[in-house]
């Protein structure tokens, strides 16, 4: 009885919600028990989405990282909402499955709300998509999509920052090596070696790490530094 599904476009995530009519009464007024399935091969991101859902009062959340046998899993889980990342190459397969009522017992495959183009755009930009079972009210699903979008964006930002930090570390390593080469070949101090490279970088309008990299490469080519 899936009426909608949220799909993601980044790494890999799918999550689905279920609404089988048995609307459990929650302490929180805003959430009835929606069954949500998150499909994402990226376990970290899936966990971030899951945490967000739980914080919002959705306790019936299932994470799936591997789409093999997903048809059976969806039939078992019977989600109301499915969230999936847009990078997943199996989106066509999943959408087809949602459309075959015999596979999932109830048709899904309506994007959260066609008329809400801003939401759709935000979701695709963030790399996430959602499917919802038929008949779910948009007010119930919209917060889930919005949460998924913001968590996807936060995840991308984190991943970007991590990548930047990693490359900064790489840069530092190559700069240290270049300094060592200069100290050895010119018999100068570390401070002097660093100043020399910085001057070269400024004169050539290049990054310090680029200067260092060419130094290391050149030294390697000339056999000065293994």
């Amino acid at each position, binding site marked *: 009885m899936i009426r909608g*599904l949220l*799909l993601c*476009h980044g790494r890999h995530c799918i999550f689905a919600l279920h609404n089988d009519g048995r609307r459990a009464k929650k302490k929180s007024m805003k959430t009835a028990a929606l069954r949500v399935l998150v499909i994402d091969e990226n376990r970290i991101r899936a966990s971030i989405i899951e945490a967000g859902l739980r914080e919002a009062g959705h306790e019936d959340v299932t994470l799936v990282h591997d789409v093999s046998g997903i048809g059976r899993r969806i039939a078992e889980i019977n989600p109301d909402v499915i969230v999936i990342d*847009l*990078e*997943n*190459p*199996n*989106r*066509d*397969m999943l*959408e*087809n*499955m949602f*459309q075959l009522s015999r596979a999932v017992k109830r048709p899904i*495959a*309506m*994007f959260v709300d*066609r008329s809400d*183009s801003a939401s*759709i*755009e935000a979701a*695709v*930009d963030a790399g996430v*998509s959602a*499917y919802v079972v038929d008949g779910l009210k948009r007010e119930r699903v919209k917060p889930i999509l919005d949460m998924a979008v913001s968590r996807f964006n936060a995840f991308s930002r984190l991943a970007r920052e991590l990548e930047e930090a990693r490359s900064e570390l790489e840069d530092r390593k190559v700069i240290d090596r270049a300094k060592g080469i200069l100290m050895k070949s010119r018999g100068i101090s570390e401070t002097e070696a660093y100043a020399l490279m910085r001057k070269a970088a400024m004169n050539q309008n290049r990054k310090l790490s680029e200067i260092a990299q060419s130094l290391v490469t050149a030294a390697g080519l000339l056999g000065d530094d293994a």
Partner: protein
Amino acid sequence: MSEARFEISAGFLPLLDSALLVAAREKGFAAAEGIELTLLRETSWANIRDRLAVGHFQVAHMLAPMPIACNLGLTPLAANTVVPMALGLGGNAVTVSNALWHDMAGHGASDDLSPRAVGEALRAVVAARARSNASPLRLGVVHPHSGHNYELRYWLAACGIDPDRDVEIVILPPPLMADALGSGALDGFCAGEPWNTAAVLLGHGRIATVKAKIWRSSPEKVLGADARWGEANAEALSALLRAIHHAAQWCAEPANHAELAGIMSAPAYVGRPAGWMLPALSGHLGTAVDSLVDVDDFFVPQAKAATFPWKSHALWFYSQMVRWGQVEHSAANAAIARDTYRPDLYRTALKPLGAALPGANAKVEGALPVPTPVGSAGASLVLGPDGFFDGGLFDPDDLDGYIAAQRNVAG
């Protein structure tokens, strides 16, 4: 290089028939029309559709039935999409696992790709498996709204195999087909190149028949354009169609095939060896490690009005959507399908070039047994042969009759 007047982003999937778009960019045809053409590779047709809908792409390499499905509301999300141009004819094949081919050969499958003989052998295998309570064969296609799905089903049904009851048809992305065949997850698949050739070269399967023999000179991929963008940017769209027209001419020239194969093999495009691209371009198809078959019109990038968006093609796809229960037939739905393909936009763009422009917007599909000169504006034009392997005819003026007749056959 002249200053770009238009910026256009196009999505595509890693398939050989994205070649027209790729050549338009890589060989400078887009730049010559003042277009800065950005090509973005995608991982699923759903992404192509979604990113077109939200404006990341203005146009895209699309399965020919997809824009029709979008406009009919059969997809979760869709912009109103128009088809101002096709991206060639043919290009697909049906590849089966070595084990299935072994069984089919035992039932008389011929190695000449004949849809009839191969299909009858397949029917015998299907029947034998049913008698021994073996699980039904599992066949992969790339999308429910694809030429692959419809031509596979057309072929199976015409050979007496019910595509819904006698076999299981599943959806899988094209780059995964060969591995799925090798691992035994699939018994066969219908997909575009180079993925059939890949399965053969990796030793996972054998090409059993081809689209060009099931329905010769039949439509496969199209250029889908965001209708609103196209309307507001008619000049940019026309310039793009001219660029693709020149690219199609370049792709069709055998002397350019080696270079094109090299371009397509780049990581940003198909990202597989150039040797995988050549069979589709030359028509010398390696159907098995020890078997080479020459296929006429395997993939037609330009000749026979291969880029013309025939309304009869749109309506045939629509008839198959009805046949397989994807949409209810109504006059309104048929009109949506017909209006999705826009030969008027094609003519407007290409007329100044003196290109061969068909005089009609639709034709009776399957009616030409031999190459036939037809009425055209601009350069002269020869169409066909274009037959369905079972001798079927599709007259777009008798859509109701065709739909009624196939209902009886489909069972």
